[in-house]
């Protein structure tokens, strides 16, 4: 009987002591995580012991086979032995292990990394004559390869489904030389640094929150030149906590087909240039504010020349709680023959929020976008006025794949009826 009372007393003492000492915000998962950490530590120690044993055996065998020459011994000591004042003396075995790890993490040149992006889409709208159904999005391969400590190559190719096959296109091909953080020079074809989205999200729908890019910067569109062939300098601007940076480019600009860049050569003797300045203030981590200017001369047909000025501004908050993206652009065209001018405007505002529940997999979003173009602008023939809303949600199935579902309500053109549509996409990277 007495022992039962003693047991009860001990139990109550123990639980009360534990409750008194445990930290208040403890979560139910902490003991599990702690035990996992301890287990990992034990396993790491065990691996170290086994590796040491293996190395001892190897050294014993090597020693029996051939003694090292004095030169070899000296070289090894010079590389691996730390200065006595910097670290406690380490054994030869530890030095050997260290060199192995260093070799494993050494940068090798070239070292090609390839990442693929793909998406499968479904769409249905109430627009007259439209057909609902599935379609394959772009199949995209991104390539990155450091060629030396200061020279890197980046490439991007896309395969786009067409009724008669697939279109293969080189979307970006860039060789970049890094002098330092303030000056990096690249040559090739890149996404024109006008505004935020075009240079932040590339071909690969998984990278962006929504199913599609805003209409003003859609691939294949003509409102803003999305690609640029030439030379670009970029870097940080010494500005302390303001976090200023810049991009300046000189290149071919638009080809005679205005939706394309001049990959195979310029359409005239005039070079296009672009300048972009942005700030990422240290005090507001996640905030970026930028402004861009683009200048080109368009020659859609021989004898037809238009001056083009694009001015743009953007404000983004890149954290996902919330995510806020807003861009505005004005495109000014001037006919060099008649001196007639046209100004077209476009903007979008996108708001998203990564919900904290269910491992933060859900991200609802909303975007409003607007385009206005003078009806008689002879250059932006394929651009229609637009006023549209997109309401959707993204669900990240894993770290590398997502489902997206959207409802869109938009009006394309003047006095046209509004169109409702449902869009679904699964986008992934591999």
């Amino acid at each position, binding site marked *: 009987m007495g*022992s*039962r009372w*003693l*047991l009860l007393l*001990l139990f109550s003492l*123990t639980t009360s*002591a*534990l409750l008194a*000492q445990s*930290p208040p915000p403890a979560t139910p998962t902490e003991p599990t995580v702690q035990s*996992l*950490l301890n287990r*990992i530590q034990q396993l*790491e120690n065990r691996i*170290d012991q086994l590796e040491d044993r293996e190395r001892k055996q190897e050294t014993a065998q090597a020693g029996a086979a051939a003694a090292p020459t004095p030169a070899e011994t000296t070289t090894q000591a010079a590389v691996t032995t*730390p*200065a006595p*004042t*910097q*670290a*406690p003396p380490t054994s030869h075995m530890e030095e050997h292990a*260290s060199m192995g*790890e*260093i070799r494993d*993490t050494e*940068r090798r040149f070239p070292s090609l*990394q390839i*990442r693929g992006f793909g998406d499968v889409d479904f769409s249905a709208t109430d627009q007259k004559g439209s057909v609902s159904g599935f379609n394959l999005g772009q199949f995209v391969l*991104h390539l*990155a390869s*450091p060629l030396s*400590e*200061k020279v*890197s190559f*980046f490439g*991007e190719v896309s395969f786009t489904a067409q009724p008669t096959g697939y279109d293969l296109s080189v979307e*970006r091909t860039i060789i*970049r030389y*890094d002098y*330092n*953080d303030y000056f990096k020079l*690249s040559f090739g074809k*890149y996404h024109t640094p006008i505004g935020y989205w075009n240079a*932040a*999200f*590339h071909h*690969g729908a998984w*990278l962006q929150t929504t199913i599609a890019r805003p209409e003003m910067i859609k691939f294949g569109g003509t409102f803003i030149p999305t690609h640029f062939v030439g030379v670009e300098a970029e870097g*940080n601007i010494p500005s302390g906590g303001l*976090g200023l940076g810049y991009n300046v480019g000189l290149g071919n600009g638009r080809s005679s087909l205005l939706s394309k860049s001049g990959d195979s050569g310029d359409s005239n003797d005039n070079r296009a240039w672009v300048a972009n300045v942005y700030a*990422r203030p*240290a*005090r507001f*981590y*996640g905030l970026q504010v930028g402004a861009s200017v683009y200048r080109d001369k368009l020659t859609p047909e021989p004898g037809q020349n238009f001056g083009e000025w694009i001015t743009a501004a953007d404000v983004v908050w890149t954290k*996902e709680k919330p995510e806020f993206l807003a861009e505005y652009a004005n495109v000014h065209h001037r006919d060099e023959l008649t001196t007639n001018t046209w100004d077209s405007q476009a903007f979008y505002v996108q708001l998203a929020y990564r919900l904290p529940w269910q491992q*933060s997999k859900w991200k609802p979003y909303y975007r409003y976008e607007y385009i206005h173009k003078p009806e008689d602008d002879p250059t932006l023939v394929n651009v229609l006025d637009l006023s549209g809303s997109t309401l959707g949600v993204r669900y990240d199935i894993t*770290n*590398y794949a997502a489902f997206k579902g959207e409802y869109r309500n938009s009006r394309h053109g003047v006095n046209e009826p509004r169109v409702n549509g449902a869009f679904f996409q699964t986008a992934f*990277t591999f």
Partner: protein
Amino acid sequence: MTTHWKFASRIFALSCLCLALVPLSAQRHDVDIAVVVHPDAPVSNLNLSDVRKVFLGDRQYWSTNIPVVLLIRAPVARERDVVLKIIYQMSESQFKQYWIAKIFRAEAATAPKVVYSNDMANQLVTAIPGAIAFIDSKDVKPGSKVVRVDGRLPGEAGYPLR
């Protein structure tokens, strides 16, 4: 009776073990995370925003000839949790997505290198020029170059990385 006493003594021993582990666990969560750099890196004091800039890949060179080499512990390590929470302010999946986008946006050539233990971090940070790592301040090897963050060293009041 003897059986009961045996049982009671086992409970008592278990209770003592639990009581001993609780303060150990609490201590582990209080340990500061040191920012350690290669001895040749020309830096000794960084603001938290500078550390963030370095680890976000926005600052990629200590000087013209010394590129920054980022070392970060593998998932589950406490050092990584602290870095993700305080420096990146991202979840594990956001961190992965951030670096995929960063590399293929052509803004960085490589992602941070993953290290699997503090021993490995200690060895690599002293061996690779330009390397920077986060190491549990208790595991930092003597003689390593520990950077002040916001003017404070690990263990000092107001040190931001813990």
